[in-house]
């Protein structure tokens, strides 16, 4: 087998050709991966290795109108312990001091913590809970504890931070402050101010593209965020912490006393519609009260006698009656069809004017007025109510505003009785807020303003948006009617026969209307009959500053149920305290009165005080306060007896100060 150079070469070309083909195939495959399947794999790359991360913005603060914090975001820390990463030796050295430190901070016994730690070590627990929801200062303290200060790897410290919403005022106005939650499906639950102003408070989420570098490790791509997170704005609400506090406690006290099911108070500034306080309390099974639902805005119910104001305004506007028109209340009941309209007073009030009928809240007089006045044309009555906007929601920003119900003739449920029923507040339904808006409009001389909960939106010190008052209806009725019904509302409290007279105080004026409304009356079972006690009004009666409504549902009948008794005191207490804390400003210019005595005694004091003394001066005849000031400024101890001017001094004048050992006793006249 002779092997020649040429033979090798020929075969070599053959092999080299094969290798070239191989190389060509690799290159072809390379190109084909890029060209044919390129998009598929690029997609795969994006899917597997990059992800858009959201950066949560800081939520803004919610303030009351005077700048007190209603809600703010704070960090809370949960501390856990990894018992495996810690070396046995370090653990044994530190377990006692650590247990002691923990016990000192968190309040359980050192042995408890020692047991927890040792058990974790024995069970190789890498995630033992030590403390939950610590605030920042406690967290900083825990970080410096023995063992834990060695950090996550040597000391086994695991820290989980979360941001929670804190309400510095606690339960007060909790429901109205509310919250905003988002569940795993992305649905928002929005409650109260937090929910209503979530768009301002929430801020804008930032976006950051990150690239996966290993399991669970992501690195940000590029130097900037795709979208910078924008912190939420601060919202300044109209809530006044003081009034809120007053309203909350007044309501709580009354609910407790009457064992009522629930109730609410709203206080609103008359001119602007700013809601100064809104308190909703509901009873738990244990008989405690807490902010459960926003009854004030959400609960639409039959208003009862507070609706008489709307009726008398309508009747006056339409010229059906005048305040001086006389109605016969018969013997306390009036039969219409088969129904009896009763007055709360047995035997009725006899023949009374409409103004007195309002003040005593006579159902018969009102039923007669509306029924007789409008029975030919019930549409006119309903149109009048609708003109005043009573069938419309107020458009509150808070979710879940109750819908008012004003039936129209011919609607389902409308009957021949309807006019008479509506006359004293049945067969209609409004929320406390809607009733208050109407009373406020009366107080505000006919201008109906929208109740507001937000005043201003701020970013630090920069104002982003200011909310001014919104007028829903510049004039709900004539000025004449206004002044008439204002008088009626004032009389209800001031006149002896008025249903609200129990609230009367000679010190400040209030105006308002009681309402006692039956609830669940359909069942005819007297035990099931429940009441809603209401008081709506404003204060001061002349030139009103605030309007307020108190609604208490289902008070214990054995204790009482009349609006004047149940809700009235809350109103009074709110009015009284608000009155006391926000007095009307009266400016008095005082003449600068010259007092010769005062001037001369001051001169005397001034002269003495300016002298450099080495001896005890004569202070006889000086005012006590001047004498004390002079002597004590010299470094002497002074004792005074009595008051007035100095009669005697125990150390005579001229004695050297350095020689005075004892106290100088001044006897004053």
């Amino acid at each position, binding site marked *: 087998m*002779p*092997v020649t150079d040429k033979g090798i070469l020929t*075969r070599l070309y053959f092999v080299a050709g094969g290798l070239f083909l191989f190389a060509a195939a690799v290159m072809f495959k*390379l190109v084909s991966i890029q060209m044919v399947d390129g998009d598929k*794999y690029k997609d795969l790359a994006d899917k597997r*290795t990059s992800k858009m991360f959201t950066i949560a913005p800081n939520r803004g603060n919610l303030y009351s109108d005077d700048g007190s914090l209603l809600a703010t975001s704070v960090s809370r820390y949960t501390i856990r312990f990894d018992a495996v990463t810690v070396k046995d030796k370090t653990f044994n050295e530190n377990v006692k001091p650590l247990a002691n430190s923990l016990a000192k901070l968190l309040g359980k016994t050192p042995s408890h913590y020692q047991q927890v730690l040792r058990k974790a070590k024995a069970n190789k627990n890498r995630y033992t809970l030590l403390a939950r929801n610590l605030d920042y200062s406690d967290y900083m303290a825990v970080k410096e504890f023995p063992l834990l200060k060695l950090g996550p790897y040597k000391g086994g410290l695991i820290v989980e931070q979360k941001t929670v919403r804190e309400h510095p005022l606690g339960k007060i106005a909790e429901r109205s402050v509310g919250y905003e939650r988002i569940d795993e499906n992305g649905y928002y639950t929005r409650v109260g101010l937090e929910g209503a102003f979530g768009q301002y408070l929430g801020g804008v989420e930032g976006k950051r593209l990150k690239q996966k570098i290993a399991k669970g490790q992501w690195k940000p791509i590029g130097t900037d965020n795709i979208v910078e997170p924008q912190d939420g704005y601060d919202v300044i609400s109209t809530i006044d912490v003081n009034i809120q506090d007053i309203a909350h406690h007044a309501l709580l006290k009354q609910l407790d006393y009457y064992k009522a099911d629930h109730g609410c108070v709203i206080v609103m500034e008359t001119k602007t519609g700013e809601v100064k306080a809104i308190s909703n309390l509901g009873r738990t099974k244990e008989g405690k009260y807490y902010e459960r639902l926003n009854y004030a805005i959400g609960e639409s119910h039959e208003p009862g006698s507070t609706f008489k104001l709307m009726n008398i305004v309508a009747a006056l506007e339409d010229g059906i009656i005048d305040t001086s028109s006389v109605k016969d209340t018969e013997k306390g009941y009036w039969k219409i069809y088969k129904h009896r309209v009763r007055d709360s007073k047995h035997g009725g009030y006899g023949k009374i004017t409409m103004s007195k009928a309002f003040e005593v809240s006579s159902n018969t007089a009102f039923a007669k007025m509306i029924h007789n006045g409008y029975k030919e044309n019930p549409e006119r009555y309903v149109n009048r109510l609708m003109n005043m906007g009573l069938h419309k929601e107020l458009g509150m920003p808070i979710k879940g505003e109750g819908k008012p119900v004003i039936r129209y003739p011919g609607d389902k449920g409308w009957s021949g009785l309807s006019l008479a029923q509506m006359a004293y507040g049945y067969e209609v339904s409004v929320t406390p807020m809607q009733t208050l808006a109407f009373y406020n409009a009366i107080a505000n001389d006919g201008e109906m303003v929208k109740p507001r909960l937000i005043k201003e939106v701020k970013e630090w010190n920069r104002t982003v948006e200011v909310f001014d008052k919104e007028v829903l209806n510049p004039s709900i009725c004539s000025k004449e009617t206004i002044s008439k019904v204002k008088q009626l509302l004032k009389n209800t409290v001031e006149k002896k026969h008025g249903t609200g007279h129990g609230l009367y105080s000679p010190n400040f004026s209030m105006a308002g209307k009681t309402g006692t409304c039956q609830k669940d009356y359909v069942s005819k079972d007297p035990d099931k009959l429940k009441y809603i006690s209401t008081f709506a009004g404003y204060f001061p009666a002349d030139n009103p500053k605030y309007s307020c409504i108190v609604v208490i549902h289902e008070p214990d009948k054995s204790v009482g149920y009349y609006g004047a008794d149940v809700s009235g005191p809350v109103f009074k207490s709110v009015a009284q305290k608000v009155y006391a804390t926000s007095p009307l400003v009266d400016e008095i210019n005082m003449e600068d009165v010259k007092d010769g005595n005062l001037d001369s005694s001051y001169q005397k004091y001034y002269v003495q005080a300016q002298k450099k003394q080495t001896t005890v001066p004569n202070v006889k005849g000086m005012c006590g306060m001047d004498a004390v000031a002079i002597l004590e400024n010299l470094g002497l101890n002074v004792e005074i007896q009595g008051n007035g001017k100095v009669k005697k001094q125990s150390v005579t004048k001229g004695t050297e100060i350095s020689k005075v050992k004892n106290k100088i006793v001044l006897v004053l006249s």
Partner: protein
Amino acid sequence: MLKLFKNISGDKAIWAVVALLALFSFLPVYSSSSNLVYVVGNGTTMGHLVKHALLLFLGFGIIYGVHKIPSHFFKGLSLIAMPIVLILLIFTLAQGTTSGGTNASRWIRLPLVGLGFQPSNLAAVVLMIYVARYLTKIKDKVVTFTESILPLWVPVFLTIVLILPANFSTAAIIFSMVLMLCFLGGYPIKYLLGIIGTGIAFLAIFILTAKAAPDLFPNRVDTWMSRVDNFTNPEDTDADYQIERAKIAIATGGFLGEGAGKSVQKNFLPQSSSDFIYAIIVEEYGLVGGFVVMFFYLLLLFRIIVVANGSATIFGKLLVLGVGLPIVFQALINMAVAVELFPVTGQNLPLISMGGTSSWMICLAIGIILSVSNKDAEIEESDSSENIDETNPLEILSGQL
């Protein structure tokens, strides 16, 4: 330094290609070492870079040293080295470092330096020289098959059998390279076909025995089966992870690549700094980078052919081809794995991968090629070595040569 360059002899183009590939290797090695550091959690990036530099530096030392050795020395050296290599292989296999039930005993630790060393790499080079020597010896004779069994096939099969349980792909590559060399050296093709048949039959018996009695001897048969299975099975399974990542890397590379160091897949591709480094090169430097690397290997192939062609002796030719072609072949296999032309094997990309001591064996081979290309020395020696009995290693060592 200049003096050093003056002393450099042999094919300048090969020197250039090797130097360029080695220089270039720092880029992908440094980039993909982040995988080792941050994902596997092993060492620092700078540490890996320094280690790579050190290994390459020593590798060039080997090239320089070896290329100064006259090429005919290798004949005798291979005779001496062959039994040593076989002992090393037995030693490696016997130490039986099994990982997870499979025999991964490819490594022995070098004493003193503390580096891992794969005797199979050395065995490949030595075996090729040995085969080249044998083919040269029989160049003028007509050999019968039986005649060639003892001097040729027994050492070949011994080597392969000792490598096979731990490293199938290396064994297969060595086997095919031996066949190729025999083919080039004019060994009768009909015998070669017989050998191939024997090889396949032997492999089948090996696999069947391993399957039937898995505990009889340590082996990695299951790993091979699953790898081949993954390659032939078109469905995407979890085991396709590496290949899919490699293809993602290639696809995202585009024409010009993402840029140096910007590979994303390096963190997800296990072995991104060695077995799958070609995918990372394409991801970072695009098709252009991939083709340039390919071009350099083909250039190396071309220069090897040129050197073989220019060599005056048959032994020189066969020696160059015997140690040179496997380098190119291994490079192509590595690239073929990355583009899914080939099932996953553990082959490095020669001169580029961060492969540790295996790169020294490449350097050894390069040194041999350069030694052959050093014509002046070769011609000078070829005259005087005519009458030496090359089968006697003692004669070679006597310094007479």
